């Protein structure tokens, strides 16, 4: 039997497949459809200090091979998350790992969420979202080197739990930002969040999306995600979680070979909620066919041809 478990962020992940932030709510909604406690884990919808109302519709639309979303980080806020959502996760996810996606307008906001949650049980650590294209200041921290560095260092001083920083794809050199996070004390990185995109309703001569633009996800961004994961993983020695357009075991393996220790499945859930289980089975089948005993042996196991 192939061993699909991974040890990282100070914890055991029974499988390398997690559900991506914003695509699985707070877990509960998919409970009847996905055997949540058999997968690697999930990342919650972003949590901010105050509840956020979110953007006007349309909030989602289809694009070629993908989708665009501009939810605007609608969420229940820190207090209701602690009171209503975390208890469910604590009770129902015993083997699957939970990361809480954190977002804020200011470093202080991020800090308040982390400090406000840190004493609670029911989750492993944080995924710091510095890369949301759907709120006005959403990618500021993700694209400004010094703001990013002090944000991560500040959060590091507030928690002993694993801190994973979710990188934006929207920079000339993702390796630079990866190193900044590592140097500031991050335990891991997630790559990538969505690409800013826009659609126009030519009949109405208006943007399709209520917020004008939104984030593009799904298979369309798959090759970009693999590339950026490879570049981030090359740049640092902390683990990288690969995200973007994954819908099959082959897709996940491409990320893993490029250097991802874990992967997240997002948009594919909407197309078929059994996607994470299928991805897992296909990875297992590959490992058995190739006689690979431990998944860890595949991480970054890519032969790069000599280049001049």
């Amino acid at each position, binding site marked *: 039997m192939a061993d699909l478990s991974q040890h990282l962020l100070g914890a055991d992940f029974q499988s390398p497949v997690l559900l991506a932030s*914003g*695509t*699985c*709510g707070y877990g509960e*909604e*998919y409970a009847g*459809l996905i055997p949540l406690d058999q997968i690697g884990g999930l990342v919650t*919808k972003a949590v901010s200090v105050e509840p956020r*109302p*979110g953007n*006007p*519709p*349309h*909030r*989602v*639309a*289809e694009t*070629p*091979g*993908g*989708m665009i*979303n501009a*939810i605007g980080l*609608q969420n229940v806020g820190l207090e209701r998350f602690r009171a209503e959502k975390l208890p469910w996760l604590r009770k129902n996810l015993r083997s699957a790992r939970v990361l809480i996606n954190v977002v804020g307008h200011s470093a202080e906001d991020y800090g308040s969420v982390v400090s406000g949650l840190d004493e609670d049980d029911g989750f492993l650590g944080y995924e710091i979202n510095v890369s949301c294209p759907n709120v006005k200041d959403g990618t500021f921290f993700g694209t400004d080197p010094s703001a990013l560095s002090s944000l991560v260092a500040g959060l590091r001083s507030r928690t002993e739990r694993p801190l994973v920083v979710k990188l934006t794809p929207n920079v000339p050199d993702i390796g630079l930002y990866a190193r900044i996070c590592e140097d500031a004390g991050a335990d891991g990185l997630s790559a990538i969040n969505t690409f800013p995109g826009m659609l126009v309703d030519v009949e109405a001569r208006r943007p399709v999306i209520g917020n004008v633009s939104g984030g593009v996800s*799904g*298979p369309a961004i798959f090759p970009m995600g693999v590339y950026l994961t490879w570049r981030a993983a090359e740049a640092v020695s902390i683990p990288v979680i690969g995200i973007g357009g994954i*819908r*099959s075991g082959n897709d996940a393996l491409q990320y893993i070979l490029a250097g991802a220790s874990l992967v997240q499945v997002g948009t*594919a*859930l*909407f*197309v*078929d*909620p059994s*996607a994470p289980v*299928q991805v897992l089975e296909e990875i297992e089948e590959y490992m058995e066919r190739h006689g690979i005993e431990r998944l860890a042996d595949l991480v970054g196991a890519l032969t790069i041809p000599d280049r001049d």
Partner: protein
Amino acid sequence: MLGTGLRDVAAPFLPRPFSIGAREDDGRLGFLVRVFGAGTRRLSAVKPGDELLVLGPLGRPFTLLDEQSAVCLAGGVGLAPFLFVGAEARRAGREVRIVYGERSGDRVFDPKLIRRITGIDPDIRTEDGSLGRAGLVIDDLDLGDRPQLLACGPDRMLRACADLALRHGLPLQVSVEEHMGCGVGTCQGCVVLSAGGEWIKSCTEGPVFDAGELAWRT
């Protein structure tokens, strides 16, 4: 929700929401799909034996009130849920009317089929008068028995129905249409504005709402 699955990543990539149009005793489901854009074009190319991914039933359906007759106001493919409502009403021995409007006669779904599925003879209206009565579903309605109103159709029709219900003081349920991602309440993609000014999810809290629950922006 209906889709063609993960492997078929084409322009029609996301599943689309559909009303259950018919439920056979042997468990088969029927959908009434009008070809509009890429998603429905893809679905209409499905052949017998092909596999579809069906996620459902989801969300809140139309509900018939006790001790009150019901008038279903169907605009275009908004007819779909009323095929189901009509058939269920017949099973329950309830009386329901269907008023069904289209732009023109060539778009009208076969009235004989409506009758076969629901036992109801639809009252057909077309805007150009080419079939049934000329006009809209809200024109010249007999509301003498103070029925409950159920409406499904384009936005501007739902607005007109809300006006009508308000004027006559009749209860109205509407089925709203918004782009959906997940269909199960995780993505927050499908929101509509509530009367209280909040964004609420039409996939889980709707798609059917009491008219009074929603903000009717003008």
